[in-house]
């Protein structure tokens, strides 16, 4: 596993029927990083939670959103963005919903309300037993 950064980005229509495509691409990325099957399933669920939320919230101005996968050594970071910056925080900070619980439990690190160049980000690293 080399330590150079690789970036993969997927742009998808803000439509429910493409959320499964986000999962499929995510499984390929996670497989390439070297995650085991169980962790790949976790990553698929976490990504799907964010995509579902984005698709449900929707946008009046944007048709697409992006998922950026940033592979750095054993670490996979996933950033979500949308041209429609008015979306702001896609999950409420004190939200106790199923989606938020799942994302928090499955990912190592979650940034719910980003002040950066993206709406939402989360990351997960290969563990010792991978």
């Amino acid at each position, binding site marked *: 596993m080399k330590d150079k950064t690789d970036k993969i980005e997927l742009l998808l229509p803000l439509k*429910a*029927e493409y*959320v*499964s495509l986000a*999962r*499929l691409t995510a499984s390929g990325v996670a497989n390439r990083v070297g995650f085991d099957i*169980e962790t790949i*399933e*976790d990553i*698929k*669920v976490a990504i*799907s*939670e964010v*995509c*579902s939320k984005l*698709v*449900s919230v929707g946008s009046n101005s944007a048709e697409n959103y992006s998922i950026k996968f940033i592979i750095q050594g054993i670490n996979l970071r996933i950033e979500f963005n949308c041209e429609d910056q008015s979306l702001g925080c896609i999950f409420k900070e004190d939200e106790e*919903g*199923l*989606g938020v*619980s*799942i994302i928090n*439990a*499955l990912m190592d690190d979650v940034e719910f309300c980003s002040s950066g160049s993206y709406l939402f980000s989360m990351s997960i690293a290969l563990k010792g037993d991978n």
Partner: protein
Amino acid sequence: MSSELKVREEQSKGVVTISISGEVDIYTSQGLKEKLYQIADTTQLDIKIDCKELNYIDSTGLGIFVGALKRAKQNDKKIYISNLKESIKKLFIITGLDKVFIMSDDI
């Protein structure tokens, strides 16, 4: 790869069994919701949701299970969840839903 979802309904031994196969996500869940709510609203029997062939579910689907449970309870019926794959059982534990439903692999 395909995000198809199939829902089968069957009555025997005093339970109505709903067998779900495929993937439940925000796109495929609508059909499941209609079917499950309609059964939960009207059934005279307890409900068993058989997840043996369920490959994927996320909060959209779990929310539908919770909605069905509320309806079943008003109707004085129980919901049993059976044959969950490990990766899916994990989601029930994370969300505490393993304490809300009757988790059962053997009825």
